[in-house]
């Protein structure tokens, strides 16, 4: 099975370039990336199938770090099938799944269940993460070695902070000996207890319990001290405030093995979007001020923040139709990651190749996955999209079982035309 995709704008997140050309898929991998017209013509003559991309953008599929799937435990919110279909339609070719399932993914047996279910049900790849501590309770570490053998790509307690620094330092030390990546949620648990918003004029006016943006820096500073002490490989799941950025810059400059991510929602929305208690905008951490948002966008543009993800968190209507404080946090994002991210490119805030590196290459590389590259030998996980195609989002058209998107009725630009995983077409826009 071979396929030549011609007449495309190629995004190469490794070289950080954008060129016009063609990609030749042979079997499950990319065989050639061609930019010379004569070479493309020669290849077209010998290819089994040729598709003219009509000048649309062709790029490595996105590697979405931190997708919550309701299996096991909350299949009414999301299944591997529904998430996989949403991912394929959204241009996400690898879902890096979170261990905050019911029960928590903290044994090799559960990881095997996830891998088996995913293979049966999902059209896109799954790279599962394991909990760092049993039950995400912050007391005993999971069987990190066995979990690695079972395919865990990283270890995280998601939004639970391991408050006991002795436990956390041992986890980091042990993980380091196996080269495992630890992903943490930088947040001071005392300051952030019970918070539903970021403290400031808006939260005060609305009477919402709020947390200072300083809590993120405090959590990050603590973690950096422990990383310096243990030498572990560390990734901060979400850096969302201006105050934490100098600490991140310092950690990298000091040679610590540290990277950081941010959710697309924190790059495109701010605290005022909460409006009159709109619970679809309730996230963890809470949405920040516009100053914070712009600082974080800038950090993605310069490469200080490495990864951008959807932090896809499906919640059913019941858990959102509650008073703000009681409502569940999180938003779905697999299908809105692309058009929301493109807002940043369209506004000229981040160059498309750089943005794309944060969406595909950087998370893949950090997790030790071969995806995210547009180069011979790389897996043929690709997305073809029309970056300027306008539409108004209707949340009920989303393929996720849960429809809790903050972008309902929003005007967006950028639609996926087709998605391939391992050379197989998994989505084609009708």
């Amino acid at each position, binding site marked *: 099975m071979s396929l030549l995709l011609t007449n495309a704008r190629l995004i190469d997140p490794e070289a950080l370039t954008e060129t016009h050309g063609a990609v030749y898929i042979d079997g499950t991998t990319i065989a050639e990336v061609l930019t010379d017209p004569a070479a493309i013509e020669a290849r077209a003559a010998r290819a089994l199938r040729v598709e003219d991309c009509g000048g649309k953008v062709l790029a490595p599929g996105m590697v979405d770090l931190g997708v919550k799937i309701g299996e096991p435990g909350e299949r009414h919110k999301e299944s591997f099938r529904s998430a996989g279909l949403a991912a394929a339609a959204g241009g996400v070719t690898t879902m890096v799944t979170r261990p905050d399932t019911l029960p928590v993914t903290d044994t090799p047996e559960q990881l095997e269940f996830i891998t088996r279910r995913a293979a049966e049900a999902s059209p896109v790849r799954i790279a599962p993460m394991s909990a760092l501590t049993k039950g995400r309770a912050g007391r005993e570490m999971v069987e990190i070695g066995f979990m690695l053998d079972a395919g865990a790509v990283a270890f995280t307690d998601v939004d639970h902070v391991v408050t006991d620094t002795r436990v956390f330092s041992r986890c980091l030390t042990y993980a380091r000996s196996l080269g495992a990546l630890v992903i943490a949620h930088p947040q001071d648990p005392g300051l952030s207890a019970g918070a539903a918003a970021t403290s400031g004029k808006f939260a*005060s006016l609305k009477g919402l319990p709020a947390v200072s943006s300083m809590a993120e820096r405090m959590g990050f500073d603590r973690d950096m001290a422990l990383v310096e002490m243990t030498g572990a490989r560390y990734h901060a799941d979400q850096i969302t405030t201006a105050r934490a950025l100098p600490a991140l810059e310092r950690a990298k400059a000091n040679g610590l093995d540290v990277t950081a991510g941010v959710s697309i929602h924190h790059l495109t929305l701010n605290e005022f979007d909460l409006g009159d208690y709109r619970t679809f905008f309730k996230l963890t951490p809470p949405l920040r001020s516009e100053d914070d948002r712009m600082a974080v966008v800038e950090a993605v543009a310069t490469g200080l923040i490495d990864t951008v993800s959807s932090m896809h968190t499906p919640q059913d209507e019941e858990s959102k139709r509650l*008073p703000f404080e009681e409502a569940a946090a999180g938003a779905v994002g697999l299908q809105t990651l692309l058009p929301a991210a493109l807002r940043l490119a369209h506004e000229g805030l981040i160059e498309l190749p750089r943005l794309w590196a944060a969406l595909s290459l950087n998370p893949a590389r950090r997790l030790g996955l071969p995806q995210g590259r547009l180069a011979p030998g790389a897996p043929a996980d690709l997305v073809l999209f029309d970056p300027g195609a306008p539409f108004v989002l209707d949340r009920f058209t989303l393929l996720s079982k849960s429809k809790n998107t903050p972008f309902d009725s929003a005007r967006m630009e950028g639609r996926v035309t087709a998605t391939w995983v391992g050379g197989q077409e998994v989505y084609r826009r009708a």
Partner: protein
Amino acid sequence: MSFRQSHLLGIEHLAPDEIVTLLDLAAEYAALNRSDRKHGDALDGLTQINMFFENSTRTQASFELAGKRLGADVMNMSMQASSIKKGETLIDTALSLNAMHPDLLVVRHPQSGAVDLLAQKVNCAVLNAGDGRHEHPTQALLDALTIRNAKGRLHRLSIAICGDIAHSRVARSNILLLGKMENRVRLVAPPTLLPAGIENFGVEVFHDMKAGLEDVDVVMMLRLQKERMDGGFIPSEREYYHRYGLDAEKLAHAKDDAIVMHPGPMNRGVEIDGTLADDINRSVIQDQVEMGVAVRMAAMDLLARNLRERRKEAAA
């Protein structure tokens, strides 16, 4: 008539002319309430349901009396003892209520925004009787009427709001209302009892009470909740009283004719000296309770007029 609201959820949504309309009508009702025939018919035939998800004696009584004086059928539902305990959600409660065809719904809820949520789901006029630490609009309106009665105006006054601002919905509604009416608002509190971002509210902030009360026209005290006293917000009750309790010595810094207000219930000896609270020359605390009924009559009357108007349009 310039009152365009379908609900009274907060001061935030009111325009100054709407506030004046409401206070003018409330003043008429205050006169009615002092007459021998305390009865109007503005709410005749309408059903008013008071839903209190949080304990309240005075506010609930005030709303009940206001409704009854205007001829509404009033029902009180104490939601703490009711279905909420059985796991019913606020939305389900709203749907059940709709089936009873209420016209006015008075709601108090411990969570900010809960009354807004309810208002989206019911077919009647909703009055916020206090939601979390968000707003308590009728309290701010009755305070405004009390001030207007005592001072003859509701603009260009210097007003100090003192005490637990951070947890107070009364403070938020008052800051908004007094700001809209172009008064100078001062906040006097220890920093642990001030909300974040307070400097952007268009107010002056004081941590020293004597400085904060200097030459003010109105001293508005807030209740310090018992549960805050040992919550690490202040070192102790006695230190709080020493630094932030209102006594004659601190009040001497205010103007000679400054009035003293308190939304009640008072903690005598914690935030206010007992004799001061009873001083009929300074304290207008009793007037506040009296104006409370009048303001709630006016608010329900205006909302009922708009409700009838909307229903007439819908039928046409």
